[in-house]
């Protein structure tokens, strides 16, 4: 079929929308509520084009192509309509851009600039809702919400959580939780994917920067920092460098310049997690379950399980996540080593994730009344902190991490992408079960951004069924299959965010799929390059077991590195 756009003929397939055809051919119209790969909603009407056959303005994101259709994208009428839409969206908006967390990275702001909105022609009653500060991870400011519904869709379609939806009608409409209560008592799993798709500042992470600065300025505190595997390959984009560039050394130097006393790598404790989790896997296989074993590194998945998949809680690994493992080790082993009281250590982590903020304040993540991790910042907050302290990321010499929690294997680094935990765990489990290393470390079947990956692996005379899912909706589908009697899967990795931590809810806003792919590729390149490719060969992990922990699943491990889960009573 052919359609005509701006007097040019383009090929189109039945079932496509006008926007699909335009995108393919480099014709740009502004969009706001539209999201690639989602069912169109047509809520914001930014993408209107003139349908010449009928003389109407139609939303190109939702209007299917028709044979012989003629469309104009930038007539005076269309441009006027779009401008009016922006002006109406601004009419009840707080207009406090300079004080907004998304200043400079806001679609609404961009559209206002693009459409040359320079005078206030429409002034409406300003929104006056209460902010929702209840969640430890996500802050909602409904005043800034333009009701595009992207957060609602990602929460429902990708996460299968549906914590939020439209409430009320007409001019009183707002986005909120069941019964319009705080996010903290809802089924929200804190993944932060809603923040990633929010075009304005209506959704943002709960900022911990003030507390962190206070600790940095407190001479009686030793401030320790750890960063997640995905951070070093994601931070570059915040500073205009090419996506996927590994800035690990630069970041270490920047963190020291800011004033952190010790710089550790969470990939180290990812190795530690692998030691514990592979031991747990082997224990469960040799002791008749419960199987499948499901990973517990992702706090959004863990909360999801506690709400929606209570029947699978016995399957979830008792291992704490790498963040919490290192947090616990820092305030025990490390505190002893530097002869400092645990309460005099302020432990900060940098995570690509908003759910980690929630995880850090879970009741069981403390020891003798002392929190294991005191503050969590996202990749975005880290970039803000670096700018605040005037560190020039483009002109700084790379530095190493600190001992004794700075060395990692590349297996630990792989945690940053979907499939990484699985690959790392299998490398070590293979060694523990057979006494030999794998001949080929790369497990291609679990690599890549696909939402669901499955394969069978042979370890000695053991046939292991493994599955890797990202996006909680995918997890739900897999768990439903197991509920229905599937029993060929023994080990499952679940990450809430599609693609894993590299696409987490705390990452740079505005990254497209190719940027995320670059981050993942960067992790794979590190794995190719590095000499230590398995967690059990990490010298610092070996030393930690020799000097402090004893053995995986031992008494000390159980006390510091493992936890338990229980059902959460929230409206589902």
């Amino acid at each position, binding site marked *: 079929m052919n359609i005509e756009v701006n007097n040019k003929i383009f090929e189109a397939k039945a079932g496509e929308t006008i926007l699909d055809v335009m995108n393919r051919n480099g014709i740009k119209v502004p969009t706001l509520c539209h999201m690639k790969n989602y069912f169109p909603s047509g809520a914001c009407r930014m993408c209107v084009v003139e349908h010449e056959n009928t003389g109407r303005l139609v939303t190109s994101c939702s209007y299917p192509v028709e044979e012989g259709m003629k469309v104009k994208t930038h007539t005076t009428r269309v441009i006027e309509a779009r401008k009016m839409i922006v002006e109406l969206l601004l009419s009840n908006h707080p207009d406090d851009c300079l004080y907004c967390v998304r200043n400079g990275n806001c679609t609404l702001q961009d559209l206002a600039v693009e459409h040359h909105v320079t005078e206030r022609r429409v002034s409406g009653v300003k929104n006056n809702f209460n902010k929702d500060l209840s969640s430890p991870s996500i802050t909602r400011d409904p005043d800034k919400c333009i009701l595009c519904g992207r957060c609602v869709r990602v929460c429902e379609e990708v996460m299968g*959580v549906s*914590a939020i*939806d439209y*409430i009320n009608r007409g001019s009183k409409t707002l986005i909120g939780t069941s019964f319009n209560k705080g996010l903290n008592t809802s089924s929200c799993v804190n993944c932060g994917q809603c923040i990633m798709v929010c075009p304005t500042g209506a959704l943002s992470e709960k900022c911990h920067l003030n507390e962190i600065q206070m600790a940095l300025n407190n001479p009686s505190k030793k401030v320790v920092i750890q960063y997640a595997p995905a951070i070093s390959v994601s931070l570059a984009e915040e500073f205009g460098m090419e996506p996927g560039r590994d800035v690990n050394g630069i970041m270490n130097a920047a963190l020291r310049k800011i004033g952190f006393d010790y710089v550790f790598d969470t990939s180290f404790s990812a190795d530690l997690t692998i030691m514990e989790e592979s031991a747990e896997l082997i224990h469960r296989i040799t002791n008749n379950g419960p199987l499948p074993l499901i990973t517990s590194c992702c706090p959004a998945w863990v909360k999801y399980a506690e709400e929606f998949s209570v029947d699978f809680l016995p399957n979830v690994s008792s291992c704490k996540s790498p963040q919490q493992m290192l947090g616990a080790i820092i305030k025990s082993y490390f505190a002893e080593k530097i002869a400092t009281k645990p309460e005099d250590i302020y432990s900060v982590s940098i995570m690509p994730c908003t759910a980690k903020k929630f995880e850090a304040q879970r009741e069981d993540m403390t020891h003798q009344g002392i929190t294991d991790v005191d503050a969590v910042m996202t990749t975005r907050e880290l970039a803000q902190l670096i700018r605040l302290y005037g560190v020039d990321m483009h002109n700084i010499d790379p530095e190493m991490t600190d001992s004794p929690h700075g060395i990692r294997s590349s297996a630990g680094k792989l945690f940053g992408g979907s499939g990484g935990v699985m690959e790392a765990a299998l490398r070590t489990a293979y060694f523990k079960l057979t006494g030999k290393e794998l001949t080929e470390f790369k497990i291609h079947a679990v690599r890549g951004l696909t939402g669901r990956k499955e394969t069978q692996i042979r370890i000695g005379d053991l046939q292991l069924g493994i599955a890797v899912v990202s996006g909680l909706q995918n997890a739900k589908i897999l768990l439903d299959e197991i509920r229905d009697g599937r029993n060929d899967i023994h080990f499952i990795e679940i990450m809430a965010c599609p693609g894993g931590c590299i696409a987490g809810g705390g990452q740079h806003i505005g990254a497209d799929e190719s940027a995320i792919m670059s981050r993942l590729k960067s992790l794979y390149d590190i794995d190719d390059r590095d000499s230590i490719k398995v967690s059990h060969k990490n010298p610092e992990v070996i030393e930690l077991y020799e000097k402090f922990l004893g053995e995986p699943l031992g008494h000390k491990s159980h006390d510091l590195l493992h936890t338990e889960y229980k059902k959460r009573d929230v*409206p*589902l």
Partner: protein
Amino acid sequence: MKKGIAEILEARGDAKRDSLIPILQEIQENEGFLSQRAIAEVGRRLGIPTSKIYGVATFYNQFRFEPKGKYHIQVCRGTACHVLGSATVLDKLEKLLKAKAGQTTRDGMFSIEVVACIGACGLAPVININGNFHAKVTEQSLVEIIENLKNKEV
């Protein structure tokens, strides 16, 4: 006879998502309002998230989320009443009772509901308290009406 939530859902054993609104209506008819428990129960049965049900229910004026007060006051906001000042009446009432339309006072005594047209345009602006119609309500007469009801209770 009043039916419980379980009974209502039982009677519609094979109900799907499209029966949501009739089910909510029946529950409200029996219980007087939609409780959180009721919404959660309906959600479980129909496989719909509670946020969605709450979203649907708040879209329509007919659903309430708090039990009715001892005195349920319907304020007519139809055209004739509007022209003769029902907006002021509603505003005054909300201030008097310290409760908004759709809410119930803390002591459970009064609840306010906004209705479209009662069909008593000749009496506008009109309010209906437990079936008793009060005609040509003004801010002053409203104060008296509420005072009278409060005095009755003392």
